[in-house]
């Protein structure tokens, strides 16, 4: 049998005397969309943070393309994964400047993103034309989430980890966003309470 693209094996994690994960395992195929479901406090966000190594676990392993997540492979993981946190926590700066800062990161220097590309994406996600000159705090929650998605699309990593990425959008935008993300054949690992993810046949639902 071919080894899976990404697998989480026997993850154990205890936080404040509470066993959040005991021998949790999950495999994800390349290009698959996985939705993590479960009541709040079940550790969905925590699990998402574990995959790029933003959160350590007590035992178990995470393996991507045959490489185990440890300090030697950390860079390998982070250069293949993009992560958008719940609330899309971007530093309060001018949107354009923030984009330029991200594009200047060593791992992103090969990416070419013209002002036109950025503007087209802004239009596609129904953001205001003047979004690039706004500061992050001037954006609403839903606008920030769409900006997070746009940044993810620009960076074009293999695995997209997104925590509650559509929660603050109106139903029409939720639909548009889900449709767009699912059409790109990326490996998506998401959490969401929105039904259009769960009801889409292309999405595999995993209960925590």
């Amino acid at each position, binding site marked *: 049998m071919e080894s899976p693209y990404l697998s989480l094996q026997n993850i154990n994690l205890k936080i404040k005397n509470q066993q959040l994960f005991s021998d949790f395992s999950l495999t994800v195929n390349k290009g698959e969309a996985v939705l993590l479901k479960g009541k709040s406090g079940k550790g969905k966000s925590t699990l998402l943070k574990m995959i790029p*190594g933003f*959160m350590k676990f007590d035992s178990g392993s995470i393996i991507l393309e045959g490489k185990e997540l440890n*300090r030697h492979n*950390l860079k390998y993981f982070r250069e293949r994964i*993009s992560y*958008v*946190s719940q609330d899309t*926590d971007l*530093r309060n700066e001018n949107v354009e400047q923030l984009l330029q800062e991200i594009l200047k990161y060593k791992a*992103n220097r090969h990416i070419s993103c013209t002002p036109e590309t950025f503007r087209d994406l802004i239009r596609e996600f129904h953001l205001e034309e003047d979004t690039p000159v706004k500061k992050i705090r001037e954006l609403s929650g839903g606008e920030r989430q769409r900006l997070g998605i746009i940044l993810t699309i620009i960076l074009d990593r293999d695995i997209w980890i997104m925590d509650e990425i559509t929660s603050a959008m109106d139903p029409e935008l939720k639909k548009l966003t889900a449709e767009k993300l699912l059409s790109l054949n990326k490996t998506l690992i998401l959490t969401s309470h929105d039904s259009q993810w769960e009801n889409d046949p292309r999405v595999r639902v995993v209960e925590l």
Partner: protein
Amino acid sequence: MDTNGISYLNFLYFLIFLIPMMAVTWKMNLSVNKRLVIAVSRMILQLSLVGIFLQYIFKLDKGWLNLLYVFLMMLVASFSVMKSCNRKEAPYLPIILFSFALPNTVMMLFFNRFIADIDVILSAQHTIPIAGMLLGNSLNSIIIAVNRFYSDLKEGEKEYFMMLGMSGSRSEAIRPYFRTALLTALNPTLASIETIGLVALPGMMTGQILGGALPLTAIKYQIAIMLAIMIVRFAAAALTIFMTTRLAFDDFDIPAGP
């Protein structure tokens, strides 16, 4: 005016002014008198002891002894940083000590050699006061910068992870916090340089003029010391943050500790 001529009696006269002040604060219910008496007594005691001690060091005036004295000041300052910044683990000591030692030693030697232009490079008369001024400023700057850096990072931890999530490396993701911290440490000096001489005569210059130096000589020293202060403030703060980040993050770039 002869500064050597302050008699102990003149000195006591000055204390007389404390009596009406204390009477007023007592009337106003400020309840600071106890603290005031203790503070003034402490000051007199501390400075007298330092004075006596320095008399000996100045009399001996041995280069190695002056250097040792400066090293002790650095050691005390390092402990003070560890306490004020809540970085009390032993591995922080050599890092902080190094961050004090490198810029301050370079600046001190440079000052003695090229500004003061003295024959004996480590003479007590120059080395100890200059080192004291530079170290005091470095101490202040390091505490401001380090505290600002780690509190911003703690407050912005989610933002930090988001930037790692956008493929930033640790050093790339902490850069904005580093920038703010350095600016915060530099700002007081920049502000005082901007108004220097207009609002108040700086301490070193005042001291030299009282000691009999010509104002133009005093100004040359003052300009040189202000530049030296600005440079050590910047270098010491930057070095400390840069070097402590090696201890303050784990192998997954997750901020550790308090």
